[in-house]
């Protein structure tokens, strides 16, 4: 089976600023991988680089075996990727339902979740479907941001800080959602500051610092890696 995501020697810039230096990481189908690191380590930039949202990129990015490092942004989603950005990016000029329905299917054959399934998973969104997108609470907007990429049939999900700034009960709900998605075979790359949220969910961890991968280990090795993590993340 082709690797879901394979990044080799990726460097990325924003204008003149060289942010990512020779990043290598891979994610197998069905895995949940977490990118850990302090603020400014380059984790968000890595996700953005995958989506083609940074400046210059060098190196190779393969999504489901297809080289996407030179593709324009609007073609990358169609490789089966769904991106949920840190700022959530809910559109204020659209209603909640319009926001949900906005992202098109990633391909003609892709089977995303139906609107009914999504509303079953997120009843709040059903209730608030006619409200203006940005009138939803922080937690609801986060749900919406994830829900809308589930509809597209994307099987590789890039989630940036989805637990940030949310009430514990909502974070728990998100945790259950990730577990469900994982059980259904989705491949997930998560950027997370909240160690306690990420730790039980991930199969593998990468740690970034100064735009480079400095550590990687499987979930089983988490105990023994704690001292290292304490130092790197101040956890």
């Amino acid at each position, binding site marked *: 089976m082709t690797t879901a995501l394979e990044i080799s020697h990726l460097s990325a810039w924003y204008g003149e600023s060289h942010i990512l230096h020779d990043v290598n990481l891979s994610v197998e189908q069905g895995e949940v991988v977490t990118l850990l690191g302090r603020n400014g380590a380059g984790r968000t930039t890595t996700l953005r680089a995958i989506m083609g949202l940074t400046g210059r990129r060098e190196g190779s990015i393969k999504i489901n075996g297809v080289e996407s490092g030179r593709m324009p942004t609007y*073609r990358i989603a169609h490789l089966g990727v769904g991106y949920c950005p840190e700022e959530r990016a809910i559109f204020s000029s659209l209603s909640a339902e319009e926001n949900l329905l906005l992202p098109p299917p990633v391909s003609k054959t892709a089977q995303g979740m139906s609107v009914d399934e999504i509303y079953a998973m997120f009843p709040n969104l059903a209730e608030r479907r006619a409200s203006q997108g940005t009138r939803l609470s922080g937690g609801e907007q986060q749900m919406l941001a994830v829900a809308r990429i589930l509809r597209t049939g994307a099987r590789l999900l890039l989630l940036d800080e989805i637990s940030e700034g949310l009430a514990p009960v909502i974070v728990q709900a998100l945790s259950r959602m990730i577990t469900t998605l994982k059980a259904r075979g989705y491949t997930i790359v998560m950027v997370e500051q909240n160690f306690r949220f990420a730790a039980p969910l991930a199969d593998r961890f990468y740690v970034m610092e100064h735009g480079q991968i400095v550590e990687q280990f499987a979930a089983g090795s988490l105990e023994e890696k704690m001292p290292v993590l304490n130092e790197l993340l101040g956890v």
Partner: protein
Amino acid sequence: MEIFGIPTSALLGQLLLGLVNGSFYAMLSLGLAVIFGLLNVINFAHGALYMMGAFLAWMGLNYFGVNYWVMLIVAPLLVGLFGIVIEKTMLRWLYRLDHLYGLLLTFGITLMLEGVFRSFYGVSGLPYSVPSQLAGATDLGFMLLPNYRAWVVVASLTVCLMTWFVIEKTRLGAYLRAGTENPKMVEAFGVNVPLMVTLTYGFGVALAGFAGVLAAPILQVSPLMGSNLIITVFAVVVIGGMGSILGSIVTGLGLGVIEGLTRVFYPELSATVVFIIMAIVLLIRPAGLFGREK
């Protein structure tokens, strides 16, 4: 019967003329707003492309014997295509730069278009007759309604409202609204935003071309017909703000009517009343009547 010393029928006639002008203001400011929302460019060439629409109608009739009704569809399509060429070859290089370069480029294009048409057709207007189906006037009892002018108002309003509907109520419009807010994110969802940008520009200028065809039987078809109009439309856009589609339509119509009424009661002010209103709006509500600070 008289109102303020003006016979009612004359007043209503001027009101209709005001609505006609207002329709053009509405259509042109709508096109400008749609283009500005997505491209962040003020399309100075809007006036010249409106002129081009009128000229295409004239050329269609006089060179190819194609009648008004066909040109009403063909001319906007041709203008839209021309706009697409402009966007793909010139405008797209400027998106990363300051807004003003878009204005300067489209200003240059305006001069070029006007210059070319002037060199071939001079400055005096060319006549274009009202299509026979709409000639004459209908007697409504309280006034004589010129058929063609009524048609212009109806056609413009229909097109404007259709545009409003597509933008506010359809999926395609949702892409446009979302793209105006955050084009990169819409692209990340897999929508071909660069194509949407090109087509939006094409559509915006097609609206101008359509207005041009409507205008041809009313005004003389002249290379200069766009430039004075576009500056007034700028004032309309500043007054209305570019935040809402309906706002642009209402503002355009309203200002046309006010201008028409001014022509009746204070004719000396009629050329400048829109600008005066703009100055007042700037003093009390700088973001514009329907504006969202952008």
